[in-house]
């Protein structure tokens, strides 16, 4: 016999379908999650209203990281902005480099050398690899399963070592530059990369066992933070989150850039989007990324220049025009809209990252009805990057 749950003490829906929360009734508690918390990289708060341990209202607050990137761009030379744009996402700065450089190249009508395209793709996939290593296992961390996080962080360090060799930097690479990249593959890089990939592959399988064949993880991750299919268009959902509801959205496939049309890959999809499945899609992304890096290393031309000649960076004037450039970041479509007015500095740059809709609008919706203990899990499953919201 099932006893029906007594929901009379919980807030009831009003005429507009929203819950009526009367704070003066003293039945509810306000709790701030953040700005510092384990849910996401960077600072962002969620103002939670609780009835017992259930969330009845959630409001996201940003503003803890605002550095005014888009305004800074307007006051700096095109080349100087390279060192600024990467800071719009600490976890995965390379997508910023790519969209920024490509936007400049499109407006200035510069074709980059073939070699640079492969090197850029390598950088983007390595970036995806290091992000996914941290976040896939990190999903387990939100339920208190720290082992995978430690494995992931260790593997990530190995990828950062390769970044250090290739680009001269571990976290902020500043490797792309309008016209190409800033260096060729170092000697013996391919072999060392392969060694790392082999090691990572081993751990990827272990992570599978640790998470998806885990009774606790199954029990807790399934059925929370469920995204319905009709929410996709409403919230502008992209990337792996959309793929988890069965929509094959991948900029690399839909609008191939660099050399992605020369690679073989098939993004994994599921047809039910809860924390478990979103994590599973990302686990498959991780596996796919390892394979793609191998393909890139095999297809990379040995010879050729890695930077096309460009005008003097100190007063490079980009012709008047506007463009939108997109790439597939680990979180989904990552786009930059750039307006040039013919001067040495951009007129306007606007960045559209997936976090903006995922973390602000979608999260507020997903959290309602969730248990307080699952907030972090839902946040991580959306892989929010706050600096990308506060440009």
């Amino acid at each position, binding site marked *: 016999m099932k006893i029906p749950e007594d929901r009379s003490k919980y807030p009831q829906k009003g005429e507009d379908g929203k819950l009526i929360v009367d704070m003066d009734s003293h039945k509810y508690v306000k709790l701030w999650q953040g700005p510092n918390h384990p849910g996401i990289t960077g600072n962002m708060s969620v103002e939670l209203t609780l009835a017992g341990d259930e969330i009845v209202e959630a409001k996201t607050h940003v503003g803890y990281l605002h550095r005014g990137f888009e305004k800074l761009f307007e006051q*700096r*030379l095109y*080349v*100087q*902005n*390279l*060192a*600024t744009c990467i800071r719009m996402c600490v976890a995965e700065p390379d997508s910023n480099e790519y969209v920024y450089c490509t936007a400049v190249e499109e407006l200035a009508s510069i074709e980059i050398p073939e070699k640079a395209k492969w090197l850029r793709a390598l950088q983007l996939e390595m970036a995806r690899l290091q992000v996914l290593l941290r976040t896939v296992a990190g999903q387990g961390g939100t339920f208190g399963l720290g*082992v995978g996080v430690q*494995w992931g962080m*260790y593997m990530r360090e190995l990828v950062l*070592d390769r970044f*250090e*060799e*290739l*680009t*001269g*930097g571990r976290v*902020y690479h*500043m490797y792309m530059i309008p016209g190409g990249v*800033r*260096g*060729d593959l*170092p000697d013996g890089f391919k072999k060392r990369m392969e060694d790392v990939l082999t090691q990572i592959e081993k751990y990827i399988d*272990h992570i599978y*066992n*640790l998470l998806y*064949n*885990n*009774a*606790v993880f*199954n*029990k807790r991750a399934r059925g929370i933070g469920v995204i319905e299919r009709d929410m996709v268009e409403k919230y502008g959902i992209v990337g792996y989150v959309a793929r988890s509801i069965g929509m094959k959205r991948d900029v690399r496939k839909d609008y191939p850039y660099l050399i992605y049309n020369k690679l073989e890959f098939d993004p994994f999809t599921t047809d039910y989007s809860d924390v478990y499945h979103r994590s599973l899609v990302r686990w498959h992304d991780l596996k796919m990324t390892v394979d793609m890096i191998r393909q890139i290393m095999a297809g990379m031309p040995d010879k050729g*220049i*890695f*930077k096309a*000649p*460009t*005008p*003097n*960076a*100190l*007063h490079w004037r980009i012709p008047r025009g506007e463009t939108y450039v997109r790439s597939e970041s680990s979180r989904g479509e990552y786009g930059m809209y750039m307006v040039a007015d013919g001067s040495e500095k951009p007129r306007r740059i606007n960045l559209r990252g997936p976090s903006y809709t995922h973390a602000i609008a979608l999260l507020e919706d997903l959290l309602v009805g969730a248990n307080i203990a699952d907030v972090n899990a839902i946040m991580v499953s959306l892989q929010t990057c706050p600096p990308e919201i506060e440009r």
Partner: protein
Amino acid sequence: MGLKDLIMPFKAWGHVADKPVSLPKKEIFREAAPRYRGFHTNDVDVCIGCGTCEAICENNAIVMVEVEGIEAKNGDSGLRPMVDYGRCCWCAFCVDVCTTHSLNLTNEYIWVDDDPESFKFIPGVDKKSWDGKEDGWHKPGPDYDLYPTERVKMEELAPEERDSSFIEFVKGYSKEQAQKEADRCVECGICINTCPAHMGIPEYIKAVRNDDMQEGLRVLYETNPLPEICGRICTHKCEDVCSVGHHGDPLSIRWLKRYIADQVPAEQYHEILDTKEIYKNNKKVAMVGSGPASLSAAYYLSLMGYECTIYEKLEKPGGMMRYGIPEYRLPYDQIDKDIDYIESLGVKIICNTAVDDKKFKELEENYDAVFIGTGLHLGRSTRIPGSDHEHVFQSIDLLRAITEGKEIMVPEKVVIIGGGNVAMDITRSMARLQRKKYGKVQIITTSLERENEMPADREEVVEAREEGAAIKPGWGPKEIEIVDGKIKGLHVVKVLSVFDEDHRFNPKFDENEKNFFEADMVIESIGQGMDISYLPEEMKEKLEFGPRGRLVINEYHQSTLDWLFVGGDMVVGPDVIHGIANGHKAAIGIDHYLQNKK
């Protein structure tokens, strides 16, 4: 959920015997990758303080500062970059843009100090443990540049098109070419200090980029009233020190100057330079000689309100610019364009009037001040046996005769002695005349200096060869052989060295290695001297002469006679830009003198 879900996670225990991946403390200080962007080093001896690192730094982390022991000199600002690690983001664009490749990053990355101020340091000057370390970020590859290092090629007439006529062979830049070339400038301003006239070079190059010819012309005339002329034949000392030239071709500063001047029609000069109305102060200044120094002095004095009169011995004004430099390098209409504008400001140029001692005394009486810039018009002789023959000429006399349109002797075989630009001018002029007359060129130009020591511009030597002349450097003239009153040729011996250890002119010869250059005519082009015979004797007594017979002058070119100012090749040079510079300086000096004169 099945049994598998309960058991599988325990597989993680399989790692329990793994070697720990966390590093013990002593291994944390590991060596970074060879390309790692760590701390800065700077080779201060190679660095020229151009400041491009400062210009590109988006964080203002680099400031150019004066350093004890490093003085500003030609081609070096004397400043060195100071880096503030409170601001630096290690993007290494400062390294990528460094014109001399002196600034680099090492792969060193640990620096512990309790004094925050210590993190501001001057790489290379403040000694650090990582100084001289090879590993680290360097400019990536030879094809990688943040500014174009290759010069936009100047189009010229092909040798076979130009070698029988005196038409200008350098075509000049098109708008597209000029803007492309102007784009290469890094705006360091090292050139400004080197230019004798201290022209605002980066400013006018910027005007070319902006396609603002009016602004460009205004910048040019601030320091140089002869841009058409200088834009063609300036000795471009600025290009020798151009920071872009350290790894690449230096900017074509001279051609860009010419481009600006060429774009603006003469009729617009008054409007653009705002010289329609000039206040007159009723003071009069005379100039003797109408070369660049006098013209420059007259231009700036007339802008200050002085009434200037220039006396010229020859038929047309311009001095050595007209009578020394061949037309194919500097067409006469371009000289006229610059001089006509100066005349239009009210400067009187009286030609065909030689100033002698009597006339000079008149000038002293009738004018408030006198400027002399009569240049070096006396050719020097080698004084070797045979050099007194009637078919041994001075290059300067022949060049003048060619300009005046006089018939000159053009034999089949010519030998020219000299390795400077004037020697190249007469070589190339004679080559043109020979080709016109005989359809072929038989000229040997020989100089004491060896190939790489020749004082002539490299391009002049190359172009002279293209036009058919044989340039044979490193031979010392010994004797002109004369048989039956006719020149047969020049005997030469091999030169071992031209200068001694103290860099003084003291040629040494190998008398055993001889050569003979056949010739019907020998032209000497080994330098010129000044002729001041027009100065009255009593004045000469009052004047002070320095070494090599040059007049002693002060900073403003005032001689020991306070009303007499001296400029041009007589003082420094010989070249046009020095004349322009010291004409300007003298104009300021004359103004000071007359303002303070009671």
